[in-house]
């Protein structure tokens, strides 16, 4: 019987690279073997002889022939990824972890709170929700970025609005063309009347922390707050130990957790 090697990636060709912001790019990949994933599951992106780094695809799981991954240049591996060119071959290992529990969102008002490149996995979620929009009472997206230039998927918000998603955006620092809100993303919570059913948060650690504290204060229940935890996922299969968060391994038990599951663990925001 041939060995099943969970450490071996599938080869993928970089079909297209889009500059989203000065330090964020979206990579469209065509995999040699099709890889089905659930929205919210992640993959390991391999650059040969450099390393691997974990990302949640930002494309819809309904799109089978290619996969999009939006990546900020933030470290050794992501810098190498940013220097790749269209036509280069990389590796993709996955899908890993558990996706967003869509069943738990059904029939409810779904609030998505995103910050910066944290919008990447949320885009996949949003596209999935849009594809099944009849199943949800209401879909809202509150998105914040540092400046108007740092907003990713700039041209796509209009399409999502057309699909019935209520969208509010803010930037920490505006410019003369910016007509929307200025301030950290949580200021947008004051602008909308919410049924406080479920909220999904993804963004930089500080935004995750204050986003969570804000929605808790508003009356969201800890078990209805879904957080995408970013820890050092390496093997992705619950063996190597790096992403330990209390007794969980974020790679296999997450990366999406309910706040109620992790609230008592030290260091969740660090």
């Amino acid at each position, binding site marked *: 019987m041939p060995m099943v090697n969970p450490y071996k990636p599938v080869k993928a060709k970089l079909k297209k690279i889009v500059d989203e912001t000065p330090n964020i790019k979206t990579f469209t990949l065509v995999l040699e073997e099709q890889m089905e994933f659930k929205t919210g599951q992640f993959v390991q992106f391999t*650059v040969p002889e450099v390393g691997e780094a974990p990302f949640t695809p930002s494309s819809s799981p309904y799109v089978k022939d290619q996969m999009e991954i939006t990546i900020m240049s933030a470290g050794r591996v992501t810098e190498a990824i940013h220097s790749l060119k269209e036509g280069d071959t990389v590796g993709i290992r996955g899908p890993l972890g558990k996706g967003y529990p869509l069943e738990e969102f059904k029939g409810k008002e779904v609030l998505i709170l995103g910050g910066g490149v944290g919008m990447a996995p949320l885009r996949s979620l949003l596209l999935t929700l849009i594809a099944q929009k009849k199943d949800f009472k209401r879909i809202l997206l509150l998105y914040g970025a540092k400046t108007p230039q740092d907003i990713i998927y700039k041209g796509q918000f209009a399409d999502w609005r057309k699909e019935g998603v209520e969208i509010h955006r803010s930037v920490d620092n505006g410019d003369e063309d910016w007509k929307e809100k200025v301030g950290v993303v949580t200021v947008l919570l004051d602008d909308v009347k919410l049924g406080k059913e479920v909220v999904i948060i993804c963004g930089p650690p500080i935004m995750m922390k204050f986003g969570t504290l804000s929605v808790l204060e508003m009356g969201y229940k800890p078990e209805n707050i879904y957080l995408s935890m970013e820890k050092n996922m390496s093997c992705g299969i619950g063996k*190597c130990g790096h992403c330990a968060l209390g007794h969980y391994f974020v790679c296999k038990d997450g990366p999406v957790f309910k706040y109620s599951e992790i609230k008592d663990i030290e260091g969740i925001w660090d």
Partner: protein
Amino acid sequence: METKFISKDKIKQFIDNLEGDVFIPQEKEDFFSWQKYPCNFSLRGFRTILPPKFFFYSPQEVLKEKEIVKRTVVGIKACDLKGVLFLKKVFKEGDFVDPFFRDDILIISSDCTELHKNCFCSLLGDNPYPEKGFDLNLSEVKDGFIVEIGSDRGKKLVEENEGLFSSVEPEGLEERKQRRDALRKEIKGEKIDFDGKEVKSEKITDEIKKCVSCTACTIVCPSCFCFLLDEKSDFEKIRFWDSCQYPGYARVAGGANPRKELDKRFIHRVKCKFEYSPERFGSRGCFGCGRCISGCLGGINFKDVLLRLVEK
């Protein structure tokens, strides 16, 4: 379990007959070390200076299918056998199975006949003799060994070497019991009840301060399993043992690090062994071999650390 007897003069013959690579403890001045057979060997004493996890889980390995040579490890002591069984749970159970951890190795364990000064298995409620998980276990008695058969592979091995074994007299089993009880009594201290849940780091601040993050405790631990992956060319991976005691172990791109501080890493290790591992794998991750004490550059006595953590 079924038992047999093998005399001292026949044990070498039996080991000679084992196929493939055989590793066995050799007695040095005041410790035991693993050697590749044929060599002088000893099945007496206590655990080897390094754990047998090396044989099952390579410290540095390219993760691709390769030829493997049949391997037997003889003389694994009780604590280390528990360590191997723990690692098997980590690597071979769950949604994903690691194909590179070697669970094909034949295990011939043996009873401890004396204690190392840092041993504390009984403090955790364990015994200095193997009770399960071996293919064969050897318990020294006068003139030879009681051989306990723990698996079908062990049984087959005994059958293949039928002429070397004889049946066990009741006095033999009685002698084994007496020897085991006597050694167990030598381990000082009552069993502690520690589940790692309420760890107060203030109780051990002075001990934590001695840690220099050298990671020796994790390297010599029979059950520490953490590893690091690195990328070779052509999408092959290589893995190395890693340690949660390195400051950068849990750091992510962008710099966030949940265990930047020494005390957090130290407590994480304690909780991993006693709180998290039971929840993750259904087994505690410390078996009282005391190697972390022997190996600590800062002179931390982990046995004392545990005793202080359970103090009211």
